[in-house]
């Protein structure tokens, strides 16, 4: 009788036990998968929430008076728009948004006119636009407070510095300076202010520093300083540090929790394998008594464990994907879809679960095979 026949007949005979083992191992695999997938989704979700918290890096023209900047909300100085091109290949700032801003009178009200262009990604990355509002030429987005005080309506023409622009968006109240702002296309504002090719601010998102001990301001200045001579680099520490600390916290948690969860589930698989082997010691003794070589005896027992673990890994992966599919939309509103199924995790489970079972079974099996077979046949 060959090894596969022996494994199959044993599995069929002890089908309830085999099924229970498959269920337990599947649940262990599903738990690990669910944890890994939700952890990853949680990380992505946190990143997106932080991203939406706002840009945390300001690059201002040389000679900017920060007193004026913080009091008025813009720099009196300008810098060439071409500076944006110089920033495409650096590594410390991303999502670069060029601005040209001035406080102007519209009717009886002072508003901030902000010329803005679509955000630019470092290294030619293609990502979803989040920050750059980028009104089309000839149109404006009007802040809620401006619209209310000046009684502006959607699609109304608005006179700005002698030029007529159409209101295409009235922004909802934000409780920020956006409420008293009018956004227009950067090129339009450059024309209105007679500052062709000029900007007076670049906003950006500080990239992750690989080394958490590194001083972020020094790293930013070291990389951006030579590219933009004289420019002032201002890091909004409240936003940047909160973002950085939250990221490190999430990564730290995952770094500790992931191996613990994997280890616990691995131990569960291992315990089941070891228990099965212990229960079947008399069978090992019988095979010995009949003169089966150790390699064949080992293959009968290891084969069973590998088969169950392999099958359970597939079931567990499907189970976790199915369950996550049910809850992901509620848990992770921004990122649920891309993390629901991961074939890499399936492949990982397909070798990791059998590997755990193999390691677990190998020790008691090696012990059983190495001592005198008569011990296996003795009554418990």
């Amino acid at each position, binding site marked *: *009788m060959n090894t596969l026949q022996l494994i199959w*007949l*044993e599995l*069929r*005979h*002890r089908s309830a036990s085999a099924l229970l083992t498959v269920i337990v191992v599947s649940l262990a695999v599903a738990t690990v998968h669910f944890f890994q997938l939700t952890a990853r989704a949680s990380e992505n979700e946190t990143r997106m929430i932080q991203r939406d918290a706002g840009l945390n890096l300001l690059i201002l023209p040389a000679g900017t008076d920060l007193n004026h900047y913080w009091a008025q909300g813009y720099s009196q100085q300008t810098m060439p728009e071409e500076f944006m091109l110089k920033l495409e290949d650096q590594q410390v700032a991303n999502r670069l948004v060029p601005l040209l801003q001035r406080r102007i009178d519209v009717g009886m009200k002072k508003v901030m006119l902000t010329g803005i262009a679509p955000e630019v990604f470092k290294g030619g990355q293609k990502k979803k636009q989040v920050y750059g509002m980028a009104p089309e030429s000839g149109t404006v987005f009007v802040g809620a407070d401006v619209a209310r005080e000046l009684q502006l309506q959607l699609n109304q023409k608005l006179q700005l510095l002698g030029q007529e622009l159409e209101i295409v968006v009235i922004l909802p109240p934000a409780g920020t300076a956006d409420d008293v702002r009018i956004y227009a296309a950067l090129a339009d504002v450059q024309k209105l202010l007679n500052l062709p090719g000029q900007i007076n601010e670049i906003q950006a998102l500080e990239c992750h520093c690989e080394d958490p001990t590194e001083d972020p301001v020094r790293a930013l200045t070291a990389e951006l300083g030579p590219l933009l001579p004289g420019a002032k680099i201002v890091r909004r520490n409240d936003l940047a540090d909160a973002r950085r600390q939250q990221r490190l916290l999430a990564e730290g948690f995952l770094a500790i929790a992931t191996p613990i969860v994997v280890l616990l589930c691995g131990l569960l698989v291992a315990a089941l394998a070891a228990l099965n082997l212990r229960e079947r010691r*008399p*069978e090992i*003794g*019988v095979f*010995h*008594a*009949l*003169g*089966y*070589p*150790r390699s064949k005896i080992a293959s009968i027992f290891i084969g069973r464990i590998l088969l169950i673990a392999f099958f359970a890994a597939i079931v567990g992966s499907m189970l976790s994907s199915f369950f996550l599919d049910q809850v992901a939309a509620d848990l992770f509103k921004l990122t649920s879809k891309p993390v629901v199924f991961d074939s890499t995790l399936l492949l990982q489970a397909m070798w990791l679960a059998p590997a755990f079972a193999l390691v677990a079974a190998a020790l008691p099996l090696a012990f059983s095979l190495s001592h*005198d*077979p*008569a*011990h296996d*046949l003795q*009554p418990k």
Partner: protein
Amino acid sequence: MSAFLAVENLSHSYGKLEVLAQMNLQIEAGEFVVVRGASGSGKSTLLSILGCMLRPSAGMVQLKGVDPFSLSASERAQLRAQDVGFVFQTMHLLPFLNVLQNACLPIRADPQTAKAMLSELGLTDRLDHKPAQLSVGERQRVALARALLPQPKLLLADEPTGNLDDVNSGRVIDGLIQFQQMGGTVILATHSPPSALSRLQATQQLSL
């Protein structure tokens, strides 16, 4: 030591408990040896050692002139497969195999021969039954068939009738006698009184 099976100064202990002490034994091929003794007297231990399943604490064993414990584990397994058959009191049939599959479990077992032997033992209509569906006597006959099918030279029977009624005991004893008459060597361990095995013509009787 030129006998078929010989032991010299054989001792075995489980921890501080010594169950065999300085034992000497010579068995020629074709003998029927009965080993008597109360439970715990060391009968099973002796059979395990003679069947190369348990390394003795001290002393020498030779089977066909070879010390099996000087061989590698795989050579010892091969020796068991070729020359040694076991019948246990608790049968140790594999619960997931039917009668025919259990009987064919030995490496050199042939299914046709197995069917014929099982038929001789009155198990023709039980071939597809699992051990749990058999009576104790039927199980012991399956175990006997499993031990005899590879045509061993030495049959070690450890209390094979211990759990059986008289009828089934008689069938098993008949099987052992038949094996001896065909030239095999039998070592039977039992705690049954001599009267219960009166039909046996043992060539040697050992008391432990």
